[in-house]
Structure formats: structure tokens, C-alpha cells
């Protein structure tokens, strides 16, 4: 059993070569925000269901003679509810406080942070930047996660500030739910693979849209003999991911600035192609191209895995409405479109066979001595460290 509180203090967050220094009060700010987010999820969020059942839904029925039929009607009914208004204002406010707290830590010392990253990245054969790569509009025109400037904006030469801000504050957003190194999703993928396919030993692995590399590193560590390629379009994220992984002693990853819609790698050259919390950041059109690339790149005998929040189909309108919150109020514009898509149909359209598709579930795997044994967590629609794991395999034999 853990002797630490939940959420644990920020001093336990793992340090790596591009972690910013933090003052006492900066850590205290993250401690407050982590506890506030836990409080909102456990104590304030559940009031929405009560307000809906006892107040908003009866009012809608009185006005329309029937119950709300889809999430849009639920939202229409809830937008005027005082409890939903208060919870939403609290959640939005908490996100804004987190962004400002993270940016303060990172920007005040950005000259030193960038110098540390540059020292780790300099002349590395494992980092291939491509300054000419066109950036997709679906990422540059929207500041995802309400992060000012998104993941592309550079405030200095060789900048990593966007990635460092994401890294330094995600502890507060998830209330520590992703573990010391915020890599619980990567451990979930590796753990799922080891449990389900103990003999699976991929020689080449591709991470599509590796971001800051949080989920990537545990997968690369789980398969130390594999050659891992991680692609990402945003330069600050890629520089950061390479520097972080290198400082953690992980050397089997090549970081390439590339777009997952057109990966500069040969057909059927990867035994494992995976993505974590990536598809929902891309446009509906891009997802089709990305899935077509997974089919092209996946070797015979290999498999494709994606980690996301559950698809909307089959969920009650109220739950869809709650899961849609981040799409509308936390700058996740493609969240809804992605979660409305029929992933099975799209994977078949990409070339895979229906009988090879799988849908599973995976929880974050985190350090037990700090976080204790896995417990039934509070539902925090869209934020919970527990995912829908889906994908498809490509059999070794092509015989029908």
C-alpha cells in the first residue's frame, strides 16, 4: 500500500534532462490544481447527472413533450442549468490556471531549458528535423487544449517551450493519474501487449504522433531490441521528446519530423504501428489517410494499436454530452468528429479485414509505491486515465 496521499505531492513527479526547475510556490500551485481537479471530478461533476435528471430533463419534457433525444438536445437543456454552469466555469478556470502556471515555470527559464535540449539534441543521428514539412491547418489554426500558440509556436530559436509546458503541467490536469513520468498510457500499451501476446516480439515499431514522447518511452523500453521510429509534426514536441528520451537512457528510438498522413517509410516495414491519444487531434479527413498509412506500413504478421477515449456510438445521450465537453470548451475541435466515426468501417476501408479487428480496454499503469494499487477511479469524462484500446492485425499468411 502506498503511504502517499492521492494526488501525491508534485515533488514526486519524475525528473529528466529537460525538466524545468520549479520553485516551492510553483509546485504548490500544481499541488492545488491537482487537488482541485480531483475535487471537481469526485464532488462537483456528479451533480450534473442529478441536475439533468431532476431539473433540466423534466423542464425539457414539459416544453417539448418528450425527453432529449441526442447530446445536442441534452446540451441545450443543460446550458441554462446553474450547476452545469458552475462546474463548467470551474473546469474552464482550472484549465486556464494550469496553462498559466505551466507557462510561468517554463517561460521564465526558457533560455536555459532550450540550451539543455540543444545540448542533448546536437548532432544526434536519432533526431531528424524537417523544417520544410508543411504543417496541417487542423493543428495550426486551433490552439489545442487551450494552450496559447498550440504545439508549434516557437518563442526562441530551437524552442521546446510548448512541449515543456505540456509536460510540466499534465500532472495537475490528470491529478497524477498518469504516473510519475506521465507515461501510464505507454505502460498500458506495453502491458496489454505482453499480457495478450507474450510471444510478440516486434523488430520495428512506429509511434504515430508521438507528442512529447510520454507514451513512447515505455513501449521502446518494453522492446529494447526493437528499432523504434517516432514521428511528430510539431518541432518543439519532437526536440523535447528526443532530449527527454535520451536523458532517460533510451537509445532505440529515432525521432523523425513527419506527418502521419504520409510517413516517409517503406511499405510493410513495421511489426507494430501504434498511436496514443493522437487520432482525436487530427481532422476527419486526416484520420482516413492515417489509417490508410497504418495498413501500408504494417508488416504481415504485425498489428496496429490505437488508444483513445471510447467511441460515442451506443453511449446514452447524457454521457455523449458530458464526453463532448472538452471538444466545445477545451479546444478539442476534432474530438467529437473522431468519436462519432465508425473505426471498424474505416479500418476495413483502409484495407484491413473485419475478422482481424479487435477492441479492448486498458488502464494506466503507474508506480504502486506512490499511487497504490489500481482502484476504481472516479469518472471524469474524457480525462480518466483509462482507455479504449482498439486496432487490427495483419495475418502473416495472405491465403484466404
Amino acid at each position: 500500500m502506498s503511504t502517499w496521499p492521492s494526488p501525491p505531492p508534485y515533488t514526486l513527479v519524475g525528473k529528466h534532462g529537460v525538466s524545468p526547475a520549479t520553485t516551492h510556490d510553483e509546485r504548490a500551485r500544481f499541488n492545488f490544481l491537482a487537488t482541485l481537479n480531483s475535487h471537481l471530478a469526485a464532488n462537483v461533476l456528479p451533480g450534473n447527472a442529478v441536475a439533468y435528471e431532476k431539473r433540466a430533463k423534466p423542464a425539457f419534457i414539459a416544453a417539448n413533450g418528450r425527453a432529449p433525444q441526442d447530446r445536442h438536445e441534452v446540451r441545450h437543456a443543460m446550458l441554462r442549468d446553474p450547476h452545469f454552469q458552475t462546474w463548467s466555469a470551474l473546469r474552464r478556470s482550472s484549465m486556464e490556471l494550469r496553462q498559466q502556471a505551466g507557462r510561468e515555470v517554463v517561460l521564465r527559464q526558457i533560455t536555459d531549458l532550450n540550451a539543455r535540449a540543444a545540448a542533448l539534441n546536437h548532432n544526434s543521428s536519432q533526431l531528424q528535423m524537417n523544417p520544410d514539412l508543411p504543417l496541417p491547418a487542423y493543428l495550426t489554426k486551433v490552439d489545442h487544449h487551450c494552450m496559447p500558440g498550440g504545439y508549434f509556436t516557437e518563442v526562441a530559436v530551437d524552442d521546446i517551450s510548448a512541449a515543456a509546458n505540456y509536460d510540466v503541467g499534465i500532472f495537475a490536469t490528470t491529478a497524477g493519474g498518469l504516473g510519475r513520468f506521465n507515461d501510464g498510457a505507454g505502460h498500458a500499451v506495453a502491458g496489454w501487449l505482453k499480457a495478450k501476446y507474450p510471444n510478440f516480439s516486434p523488430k520495428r515499431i512506429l509511434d504515430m504522433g508521438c507528442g512529447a514522447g510520454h507514451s513512447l518511452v515505455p513501449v521502446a523500453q518494453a522492446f529494447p531490441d526493437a528499432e523504434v521510429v517516432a514521428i511528430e509534426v510539431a518541432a518543439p514536441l519532437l526536440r523535447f521528446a528526443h532530449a527527454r528520451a535520451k536523458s532517460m537512457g533510451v537509445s532505440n528510438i529515432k525521432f523523425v519530423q513527419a506527418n502521419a498522413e504520409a510517413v516517409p517509410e517503406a511499405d510493410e516495414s513495421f511489426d507494430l504501428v501504434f498511436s496514443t491519444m493522437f487520432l482525436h487531434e487530427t481532422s476527419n479527413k486526416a484520420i482516413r489517410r492515417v489509417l490508410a498509412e497504418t495498413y501500408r506500413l504494417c508488416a504481415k504478421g504485425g498489428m496496429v494499436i490505437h488508444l483513445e477515449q471510447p467511441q460515442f456510438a451506443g453511449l446514452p445521450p447524457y454521457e455523449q454530452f458530458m464526453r463532448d465537453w472538452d471538444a466545445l470548451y477545451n479546444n478539442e475541435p476534432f474530438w467529437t468528429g473522431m468519436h462519432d466515426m465508425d473505426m471498424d468501417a474505416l479500418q476495413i476501408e483502409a484495407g484491413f479485414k473485419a475478422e482481424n479487428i479487435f477492441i479492448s480496454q486498458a488502464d494506466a499503469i503507474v508506480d504502486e509505491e506512490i499511487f497504490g494499487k489500481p482502484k476504481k477511479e472516479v469518472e471524469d469524462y474524457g480525462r480518466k486515465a483509462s482507455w479504449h484500446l482498439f486496432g487490427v492485425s495483419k495475418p502473416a499468411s495472405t491465403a484466404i
Partner: protein
Amino acid sequence: MSAPEFDWIALTGAKPKGKRPYFFEDPAVERVFAMLMAVTQELAVTRERLDTVERLLEKSGHLDRAQIEAYAPEPEAATARAQATRAYIARVMRIVQQEMEAINKPEHEYELAAKADELRNE
């Protein structure tokens, strides 16, 4: 540590692209609410710092700033601090919690004067 060449304080609070959602009917309420949450955060920070100062003083009888900046609580202190923050947040959120109780127990939501009339001759 070298300071960046730009005004980093001005940049910390930059607004993300996209219209900000306002949840309360009156934007002035939302404005004050956002400020109140920032102040709530800063008081929590001050309380945590005071706790650090007290623990350091209690232990060694003297204080230096570097010790405050480097302070990392042991599990027992961390647990006490986390509990204090939870209780603090519960106090700030009292009205939200009481309104939730009111929705859950509509039978308790009477006008006091009407109830007094009803019970006058009991």
C-alpha cells in the same frame, strides 16, 4: 539563470485562439469568478508555504530560503498537507455542495415562513 529576452510574465497568460466560452448569463459574473479562482489558488500556495516554513523552523529552529525552495515533504507531512488542501477546497466550494444537496432533497427546500405557518398549531 539567464532571463529570456521577452516579457515572459506578459506571455504566461496569453489567450488561446478561439472564442472563450462564458457559462454564466452575465459575463461579469464569469470574470469575477475567474479572478476568485486565481485568488483561491494563491491562498492555497501561501498556506502550503507557511506549512513549509513552520515545519522547517520546528525541525531546525532557523530558516533559510534555499531550504524552503528545496523542501520535499515525507509521506506523513505530504498527507497532512494534502488533507488540509482538500478541506480548504471543500470550504471554498461549500455553496456549490449545498446547492447539490438541495437538488437531491427537494423536500427540504421549503420557505421558512410558510413552514412556520404550517407548524404553528402543531
